[in-house]
């Protein structure tokens, strides 16, 4: 029952959402600047702070496992991996701001890996046993495919687990050195993102909130709001096309995101919650009493309900089973939501969607 765990986690960390949306709707038509500020302070920053906390815990758990080689420390490590994935999925839709710097977005996760590059590069790196390549500075410059959460998943959730691969506490193997390097790299990036948003020389938060004709960065607050719209629309397209359609077509479930850690559907569940919140905080207040707003909120609820109705991990679902039917339902709901957000919402808000990052596929 993973969903229950996730729901509890959401309630703990994001319980203030209903209050926020309520207060926001009291004032009719707030301006874009105040909405953008709410998005940053109530949506983006808390999520990156959570990611920072979870990646630090991940780094600690990795260190603990590599010094105390037991089944229990390994299980602990896997649990912190799941938490880190939870918090990454809750902010995966933001491809804007400090996460764009130094290829960070792709260093967290590059997926789908259509050319099997990650597997090949990981095998080569493990075979090389080159410790120099794991030094933080050099590791941060290496292929994005060996640095992030997908590579870590391959190492922690192999088809056949052999703890011996990680060496012993006295002599940790290259496997251990590599998971340490990945975990530390993720923790460093997550801290840097929070710093860049809030405390660097000119915090990114300030840059965004001082948008205007005089700014070198952004010409208008409306332009920033288009980013949120783009985040929502792009993420819905990712959910529909990459996370659901690709694996379901011909039922090739290894094409699902996170199939090894059996969390493909949890990822989508968290994504939907996240973009629903972004919509509620940043865009919905511009559509008071608009039927479209109602339709979108209902479509979000519908998709989330459908996904909650399915307890089996996606990878374990058999073709033509009742669970497979439920998957089709989730896909249909996601498609409907995507259509609303991509075709009707931009016009209603008077925003343009801009380039879409998936058009190349």
């Amino acid at each position, binding site marked *: 029952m993973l969903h229950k765990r996730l729901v509890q986690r959401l309630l703990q960390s994001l319980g203030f959402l209903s209050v926020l949306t309520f207060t926001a709707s009291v004032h009719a038509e707030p301006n874009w600047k105040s909405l953008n500020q709410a998005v940053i302070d109530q949506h983006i920053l808390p999520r990156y702070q959570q990611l920072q906390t979870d990646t630090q815990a991940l780094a600690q758990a990795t260190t603990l496992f590599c010094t105390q080689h037991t089944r229990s420390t390994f299980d602990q490590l896997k649990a912190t991996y799941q938490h880190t994935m939870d918090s990454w999925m809750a902010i995966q839709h933001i*491809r*804007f*701001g*400090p996460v*764009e*710097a130094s*290829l960070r977005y*792709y260093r967290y996760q*590059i997926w*789908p*890996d*259509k*050319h*099997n*590059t990650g*597997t*090949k*590069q990981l*095998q*080569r790196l493990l075979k090389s046993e080159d410790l120099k390549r794991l030094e933080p500075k*050099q590791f941060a*410059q*290496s*292929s*994005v*495919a060996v640095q992030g959460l997908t590579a870590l998943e391959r190492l922690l959730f192999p088809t056949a687990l052999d703890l011996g691969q990680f060496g012993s506490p006295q002599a940790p193997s290259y496997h251990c050195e590599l998971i340490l390097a990945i975990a530390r790299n993720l923790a460093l990036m997550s801290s840097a993102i929070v710093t*860049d948003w809030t405390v660097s020389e000119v915090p*990114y938060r300030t840059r965004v909130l001082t948008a205007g004709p005089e700014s070198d*960065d*952004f010409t208008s607050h409306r332009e920033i709001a288009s*980013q949120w719209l783009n985040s929502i629309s792009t993420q819905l397209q990712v959910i529909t096309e990459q996370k659901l359609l690709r694996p379901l*077509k*011909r039922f*090739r479930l*290894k*094409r699902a995101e996170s*199939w090894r850690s059996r969390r493909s559907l949890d990822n989508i569940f968290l994504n939907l919650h996240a973009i629903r919140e972004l919509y509620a905080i940043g865009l919905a207040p511009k559509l008071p009493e608009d039927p479209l707003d109602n339709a979108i909120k209902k479509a979000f609820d519908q998709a989330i309900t459908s996904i909650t109705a399915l307890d089996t991990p996606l990878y374990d679902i058999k073709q033509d089973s009742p669970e497979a039917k439920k998957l089709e339902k989730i896909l249909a709901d996601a498609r409907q939501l995507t259509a609303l957000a991509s075709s009707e919402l931009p016009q209603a808000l008077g925003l343009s969607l*801009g*380039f*879409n*990052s*998936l*058009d*190349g*596929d």
Partner: protein
Amino acid sequence: MKKFIALLAGIALSTSGWAKTTEKAVLTHYADLAHAMYQDSLITAQALHKAVKQLAAQPTEANLNHAKVAWKAARVPYQQTEAYRFGNAIVDDWEGKVNAWPLDEGLIDYVDGSYGSESDENPYYTANIVANEKLMIGGQSIDTGNITKALLSDTLHEIDEVESNVATGYHAIEFLLWGQDLNGTQAGAGKRPASDFSNENCTGGHCDRRVAYLLATTELLVDELNWITSQWAKGGDARKALMDGDSKASIGTILTGLGSLSYGELAGERMKLGVMLHDPEEEHDCFSDNTHWSHYYDAMGIKNVYTGRYTRVSGETLSGPSVSSLVAKKDAKVDQALRDQIETTLAKMQVLVDSAEKDNVAYDQLIAEGNTAGNAKVMDAVNALVAQTKGIESAVATLGLNPIEFEGSDSLDAPHKV
């Protein structure tokens, strides 16, 4: 398809400022250049076919080299045609048959252990058609006893709807001629020995089948190029689609092609992704190390189409009415800016060519991990392409066409730098 709809919606707004003949003349010349470029691709592919037949008859190192030279020559005109791919639906639907990339080469022939044995994406990752007269996958049996054109194109190409199952086209031929490049990001291309094609001193096993594969797939390439050339001839469907439609929308088609190739395809999928992955296989011509020329001639194709000038393989130069002149008539500055941007891109591509040809540092070495200067050279070209895309967008606006959605790329869309 979305792009065409956007353009058609723009028709109502079209001002009648242009003489229709000018637009028609530009479109006619655009189609003429397409015909010439595809015909040159056909001519050079026929030369490749001849060289391959000679290699099959006498599998010597000299004949293998001869075939490799012919392959590289065939890439020169073909890459220039890529400026026609996006926008022209007939071309875009077809091009996967000849230039699909990247490929899981284990589908075709033997591979090194470092390639791995399985992929999350592709059950046919190591199917090895050359070595197997029967393939059993997903409970289905496929008879591959006779390697024929039909088997390759109708059954095996993109089998199981996996795009990286590339059984035909330039890159399949490239793999058969060169073999895997096992030098990583160090110097050197693939080193398949000519004896891989020899029945007497066969290396690599199943040499007769490898020869049959190479012959069939090269013949297929010639067939396909023949077909596409005819599509651009007088009365051909690609030409008709362009000429019979609304002229303004057709001009939009031209610019869509240039923008999408510049942005999503070349700058994104083929270049920036490689820098992010530092992977020697993330280069377009990864077996032959010919990528620098492939990128260069893509950029050249964009210039040809925009300026209406193309130098044929025979040396003859064709020139005529171009989109450039349409833009210049409306706003000379916008035209000049875009022409400058196109020249800048070519200059940056020339840096990549010089690196490979003069300094012996091939493209896969430039994208290697830790090669900061090399990475920067590739990113300079990426940035020039992105700037050029902006110029194309200005040209679209200047001509009063509706905004076009260019093909994007997951690795590229970063509207604001930090």
